[in-house]
């Protein structure tokens, strides 16, 4: 008969436990290595801050378009301002050419872009280019000491002036109510008066008062022979002047008046200024206060573009971004 029971010698046999144990350990070590790899890779992927979709590039492009549109407006206002139509055509053609050139370049890295002008707002640039007092048009030796530059404009931007320090009224000589100020009146009757004068010690002051004459804020600076004031940018000589950031307290339409430009026969201020309003020269009601007038230096107006709205399309294989951008360089921050 065949023996089918285990021979007695086999009772204590370990049945290759060593080999099986070694196999088990080997498999466990390989599994551990696999887990370690997975953990390292997951941590690396999770801590990458990268912008996978490319949204950052789309926002970059939007900012680039806004700058380009502002540049196109400024160029057309400066160089091609014979008529309103001329300004508009130059600026819109410029943006169309910009769109074509930029699309060619963006295509190099796989983006499809397009910029189209959808709306323009035309306006007027009011300026005085030669150093002179701040009265209006002088005709036959008469000019107004207090005069209105613009009665009701829906908006105004890029208002800056350069004043001659020596001619600015000194409150050691004049009283505070006699120095030059310009007044911006909002729709609901809110008034902001901006006084410009110098102190007896020579420092240059820009003071903002409300309609009743109480001081809201002021900036004092030491300036050289000329002071550059950016009203919409709220800076004096390049440094921020928080007092000038008052446009958010006023409702449109705005009215702008220059007061106390002379005291008797003396000028209270001399210099140059420039601003762009959103009323076209045809709609402006104060055109008789402006030149040109041959033989006399006077403030002047010219056609200008106030703002331009464009549609930007930015497309990649992963993303489609479409938005409207409005460019109005020098508009006061709201």
């Amino acid at each position, binding site marked *: 008969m065949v023996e089918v029971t285990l021979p007695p010698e086999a009772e204590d046999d370990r049945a290759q436990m060593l080999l099986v144990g070694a196999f088990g350990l080997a498999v466990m070590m390989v599994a551990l*290595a696999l887990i370690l790899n997975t953990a*390292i*890779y997951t941590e690396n992927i999770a801590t990458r801050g990268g912008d996978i979709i490319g949204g950052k590039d789309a926002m970059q492009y939007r900012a*680039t378009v806004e700058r380009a549109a502002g540049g196109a407006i400024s160029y057309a206002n400066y160089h091609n301002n014979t008529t309103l139509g001329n300004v508009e055509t130059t600026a819109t053609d410029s943006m169309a050419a*910009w769109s074509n050139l930029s699309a060619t*370049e963006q295509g*190099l890295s796989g983006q499809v872009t397009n910029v189209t002008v959808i709306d323009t707002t035309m306006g007027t640039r009011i300026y005085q280019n030669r150093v002179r007092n701040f009265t209006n048009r002088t005709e036959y030796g008469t000019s107004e000491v207090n005069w209105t530059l613009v009665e009701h404009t829906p908006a105004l931007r890029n208002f800056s002036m350069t004043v001659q320090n020596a001619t600015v009224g000194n409150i050691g000589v004049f009283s505070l109510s006699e120095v030059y100020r310009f007044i911006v009146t909002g729709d609901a009757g809110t008034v902001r008066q901006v006084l410009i004068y110098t102190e007896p010690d020579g420092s240059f002051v820009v003071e903002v008062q409300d309609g009743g004459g109480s001081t809201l804020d002021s900036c004092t600076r030491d300036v050289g022979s000329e002071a550059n004031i950016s009203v919409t940018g709220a800076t004096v000589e390049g440094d921020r002047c928080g007092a000038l950031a008052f446009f958010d307290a006023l409702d449109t339409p705005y009215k702008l008046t220059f007061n106390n430009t002379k005291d008797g026969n003396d000028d209270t201020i001399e210099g140059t200024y420039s601003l762009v309003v959103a009323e076209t020269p045809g709609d402006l009601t104060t055109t008789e206060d402006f030149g040109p007038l041959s033989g006399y230096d006077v403030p002047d107006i010219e056609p200008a573009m106030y703002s331009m709205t464009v549609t930007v399309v930015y497309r990649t294989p992963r993303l489609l971004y479409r938005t409207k951008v409005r460019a109005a360089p020098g508009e006061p921050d709201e």
Partner: protein
Amino acid sequence: MTGDRRDRERRSRCTLDDRGQAHTLEALASAILLLASVVFALEVTAVTPLTASTASQHIEIQQAGVGEGLLDAAVANGTLKPTVLLFDVDQGRPYYSGSDGIYVLGGPPTTFGQALNETFSERGIAFKLTYISVDPKGGLQETVVVQMGTPSDHGVTASRTITIYDDDPLYYPNGTPQDRTAGGTKNFNIVKDAYDGPLYNVVVVQLTIWRM
């Protein structure tokens, strides 16, 4: 009966057979198996490619961030345009550049070039600056301005777009504008006039950075 018990005791203490060599073989095999698995596990972990080293992904992302930040600052400060419009009209190439108009030791001699050198060269990071514009025939013109070698596999690129108009002046290295304008200078060949009207060209300034 007692003979059986003695027999059993004798057998439980030592087994008389010729399986000793098989046991040795088994021990050797298991030792080799264990050793091989340990060596394999150590070699296969992905420590080097993914953890901190000069070739890792994190370094690339960090350098891309630095490059983009530098370009953004240059655009905001207004120092990028004077660098693009830096041109010596008499020589027909940018100031202090080599005879082919390329800088090889660092950035151009402008404020932006100085920022590039301070940020990158002093840290052992090389860079390449290219202007991509459209040429009048409609194709693309790539002008290399700074070439400090060939980028490695781990190079990253950052780019910004600026617009040049016909009446933009050319600049001297110290940032002051010249009397000549971009549209009015015939041999200003880094960027060419691509449009008849007021727009001169749209330039993509591309900065490639890699660790030397």
